[in-house]
């Protein structure tokens, strides 16, 4: 009795945790790019969509090929055949998941590298403008290309790697656990990265022009690497999302998604991964409460689509945090000191960083000469 009661909640809990994890990967990677390195990749959703398309196209095409399906790529019949085939062949279905992840990450990183080209040259505001519109353009192209993810209707039948497990609850528990593990690993990875000397280098480039100048040609390279890593992580989030929904629709990847992720980063605290986890959690809980299903459950009837209210709130949160708590709920550095002390502290740190960088550069030059 008790257990049945719990089982009823599994779909709800697993969907919350999966979406949380996917958004967490997105916010951590945006935080790496924007929070730590100061590269305003507001086209983050585009790189997520790349991963999602890779997973969708690869898996669907491969399942069609292996099953010898003659049904049209976008037909419902094809989706059914793919599902049945995946259930019958767990090994193929799971390998496709692994290959999708690897390929998604690589292609996502490749697009990040392409995005890095303007990123190295443009002033940050211009870069932000360009990247915001990149997201929109990617979506417009994808929705008009049937061969990719079936245009407006979307591609279906991208079988979950655990579709062969008969128990629905067990299946979703396993996939949830897997996605959570991915999010945790990516958290650890980004945290290690930003704690390393490389992380300090990122921050010093972001904060200090002198340091950036001392580095000379290193700056574009560093920014490029960050964009590659960030994009490839976003693509992984896209892959995980496709296998969770077992479908891809181009119109899901609106610039709005980037803005939601951005609100998570800003709310949590830029350049602070712990804060970003908290920010993501808060926004996801908000998302859960301000939803048609929750309102219906509470018996509240509103005459308009509740999701609109959610987006209003996201806007309000962005503005309020920027205006009254620009450092977010968990600030980047230690406790704030009075202006003078802080300025001296900052100066010292910057100087130290610059020294380190110059040394680092000299060493490198020495190596290349020797």
């Amino acid at each position, binding site marked *: 009795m008790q257990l049945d009661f719990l089982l009823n909640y599994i779909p709800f809990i697993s969907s919350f945790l999966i979406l949380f994890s996917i958004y967490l990967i997105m916010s951590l990677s945006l935080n790496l790019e924007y929070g730590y390195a100061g590269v305003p990749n507001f086209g983050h959703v585009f790189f997520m969509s790349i991963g999602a398309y890779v997973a969708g196209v690869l898996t669907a095409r491969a399942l069609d090929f292996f099953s010898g399906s003659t049904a049209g790529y976008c037909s419902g019949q094809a989706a059914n055949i793919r599902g049945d085939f995946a259930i019958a062949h767990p090994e193929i279905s799971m390998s496709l998941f692994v290959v999708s992840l690897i390929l998604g990450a690589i292609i996502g990183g490749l697009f990040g590298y392409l995005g890095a080209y303007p990123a190295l040259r443009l002033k940050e505001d211009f870069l932000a403008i360009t990247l915001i519109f990149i997201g929109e353009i990617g979506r417009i192209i994808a929705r008009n290309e049937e061969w990719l993810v079936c245009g407006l209707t979307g591609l279906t039948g991208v079988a979950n790697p655990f579709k062969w497990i008969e128990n629905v609850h067990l299946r979703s528990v396993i996939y949830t656990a897997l996605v959570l593990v991915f999010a945790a690993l990516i958290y650890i990875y980004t945290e290690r990265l930003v704690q390393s000397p490389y992380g300090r280098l990122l921050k010093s480039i972001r904060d200090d022009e002198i340091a950036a100048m001392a580095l000379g040609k290193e700056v574009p390279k560093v920014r490029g690497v960050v964009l590659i890593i960030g994009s490839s992580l976003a693509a992984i989030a896209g892959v995980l999302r496709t296998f969770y929904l077992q479908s891809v629709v181009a119109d899901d990847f609106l610039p709005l998604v980037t803005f939601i992720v951005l609100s998570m980063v800003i709310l949590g605290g830029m350049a602070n991964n712990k804060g970003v986890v908290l920010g993501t959690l808060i926004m996801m809980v908000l998302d859960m409460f301000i939803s048609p299903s929750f309102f219906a459950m509470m018996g509240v009837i509103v005459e308009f689509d509740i999701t609109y209210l959610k987006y209003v709130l996201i806007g309000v949160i962005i503005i309020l945090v920027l205006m009254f708590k620009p450092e977010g709920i968990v600030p980047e550095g230690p406790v704030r000191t009075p202006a003078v002390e802080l*300025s001296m502290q900052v100066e010292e740190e910057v100087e130290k960083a610059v020294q380190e960088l110059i040394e680092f550069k000299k060493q490198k030059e020495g190596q290349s000469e020797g």
Partner: protein
Amino acid sequence: MADAIIQARGITAGYGKAIIIQDVNIDIERGKITAIVGPNGSGKSTFLKTIFGLTRVFKGQIIYEGRDITKMLPEERARIGLGYVPQVNNVFPNLTVEENLEMGAYARTDKEQVKADLEEIYSVFPILRERKKQKAGSLSGGERQMLAMAMALMGKPRVLLLDEPAAALAPKVVTQIFTKIKEIVASGVTILLVEQHAKRALNLCDMGYVMAGGRVVMKGPGKELLADEKFVEAFLGKR
């Protein structure tokens, strides 16, 4: 104590969180030329900007004609008799020369007098009349400096702050500019001059201040400073 039109008392100022100048006390005497000299990065320019309210003041006061103007907006300071010629970016490049001069007189309401002053400026700086329909961005360095000074004069200031008016100009133009400065003082305007070229400035000024590392390290009448062994050794000896 001499009659000071502006007094800076214990000014500590900078940008954002960074402090550039500390505990600076400088008196600017009415109708005289006061010069601030010192090496690059000594905070001279920052001090000038501080008088005009373009920096963040952490501590201290600026007194103008007995009135505390520390918190006044720059545009309001311009309206009570302060004029300022920055070292760089001191003209509006996309406005014509004439429009630049009009902007210099923006706050004035005496239209007729403005017209007369414009004519006078043109007779003092004939080159500006020639170029009046040209965009200021197309002027040469020297012409630009002339325009910048003319703009400030169009505002009829009582105190004029000049930031390195002769920097990066040909020697002939420098002489011209310094002659103009003398003329301006003779017309009753008080001048605060910031110069890196110490000898030139101290020869011209009535009172000199030496800044280094964001502080005032020496002060005295210009000629006396030039004769001071310690000063010569520290600032001129290197040259």
